[in-house]
């Protein structure tokens, strides 16, 4: 279980997180929604320690994430970045097997390659993609490779940062389905950031809306449409009129 307790983070005068409280249960799929620039990515990066919160506590299974063995902590996570964040200088299979080629999870080269090809197959890519470089792939294929890399070491917790941004509707649907299938299949805890409502309905067990630096609303996805929260209503229906200022 991941818990964020009163997490604050500011960049200069810009107070991005102003007291975020959120609990993510083990084995559940939580989608964090909110407008651009509301701090969704910052919240995820705070959990991973890529950004240090100004105050507040983040707990993983009751343990403060800033304490303990950092390698062991990170080994529990996989992450799909918004732009894929694939390493340009490495072929696809080495991107996927990156974690299996070094560090505590190191495997023999041939075994790591086999696992990479199997994970590529799992996300719908053929083995011949393995020896290509990321620059040779389309945006959708890069997302799939990023997804394969996120699941390669079979992590307990997977973060998805805007998994469908920049993809056409069909490819978005494919990625959404893949994420849902993989999360269910692995029994992993999933946290997804998106403002694509199709993704929310396809992926989420629970939804949390981040607005003005705090969690504005949280609850099961089934209750989202009848929440009675004017902020959430405006966001999920994409209305220009409402309590959220359209120009930010």
């Amino acid at each position, binding site marked *: 279980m991941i818990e964020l307790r009163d997490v604050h983070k500011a960049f200069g005068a810009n107070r991005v997180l102003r007291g975020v409280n959120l609990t993510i249960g083990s084995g559940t799929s939580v989608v964090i929604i909110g407008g651009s620039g509301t701090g969704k990515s910052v919240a995820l*990066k705070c959990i*991973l*320690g*890529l950004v240090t919160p100004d105050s507040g506590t983040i707990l993983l299974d009751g343990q403060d994430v800033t304490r303990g063995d950092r*390698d062991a902590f*990170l*080994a529990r*996570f*996989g*992450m799909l*970045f*918004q*732009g894929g*964040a*694939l*390493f*340009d200088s490495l072929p696809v299979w080495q991107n996927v097997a*990156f*974690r299996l080629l*070094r*560090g*505590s*999870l190191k495997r023999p080269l041939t075994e790591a390659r086999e696992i990479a090809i199997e994970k590529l197959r799992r996300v719908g890519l053929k083995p011949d993609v393995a020896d290509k470089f990321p620059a040779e792939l389309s945006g959708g294929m890069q997302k799939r490779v990023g997804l394969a*890399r996120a699941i390669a070491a079979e992590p307990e917790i997977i973060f998805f940062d805007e998994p469908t941004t920049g993809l056409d509707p069909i490819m978005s649907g494919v990625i959404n389905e893949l994420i849902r299938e993989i999360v269910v299949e692995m029994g992993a805890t999933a946290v997804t950031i998106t403002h694509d409502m199709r993704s929310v309905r396809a992926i989420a067990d629970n939804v949390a809306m981040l607005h003005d630096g705090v969690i504005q609303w949280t609850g099961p996805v089934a209750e989202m449409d009848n929440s009675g929260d004017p902020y959430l209503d405006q966001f999920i229906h994409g209305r220009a009129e409402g309590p959220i200022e359209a120009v930010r």
Partner: protein
Amino acid sequence: MSFILSFLAAIGRSTLAWLAGMGRFAIFAGETVSHLARPPFYMREFLHALVQIGWLSLPVVGMTALFTGGALALQIYAGGARFNAETVVPSIVAIGLTRELGPVLGGLMVAARVASSIAAEIGTMKVTEQIDALTTLSTNPMKYLTLPRVLAATLAVPVLVGVGDVIGIMGGFLVGVTRLDFGAGTYLKTTLDFLETWDVVSGLIKGAVFGFIVALMGCYHGMNSGRGAQGVGGATKTAVVAASVLILAANYVLTEVFFST
């Protein structure tokens, strides 16, 4: 009065920002060196950096040394003729190249080629979240990106300087023999007679320091790159300028330390 106060406040802010920048850079340099003693060491990355920084810089450093050696021979001959001292050409070319021009010009050429490419590569990795991805994959970016490049440059640039010294002396030799009527044997004998081991070794030490500066500036500015294409462009430019200025400053300090009496 308020104008003076704002002026002083602006100076104070700039000074504090400069000191903070120096502090960040010092911490970055210290952290890089400290990783030498802490495993893991990424050998493949190191060997790759060695090829990129050392082997692939050979043509540009070699060409620079060749033409510099030739031009130096012509200049010293012309200057020496004013004092009837044309015969000093071989020894001055050798000493000038090994002590000063070899390491400094080699360092500056490597700065132009390597600091820019390191800063642009790491800066792009930063803005495309590849550095964050490394961290989430349990890989320390300082160990994986910075240390191999800094170590490779520190070891490769002295070798480049050594090769550059030989090629530069060869450039002087070719001009001396073909244009200035020196005998081939006499030119080489004079070069070897007057050249001391310390002339060469001091240049190689300078090369190691310049290599360290070049790679460190490339990595530091890449890691601290701003967002977008403009941020990466700015980081690349700053890395080359800072590396070049630091090379020239370090050259003066090292020359004082090595040769002042």
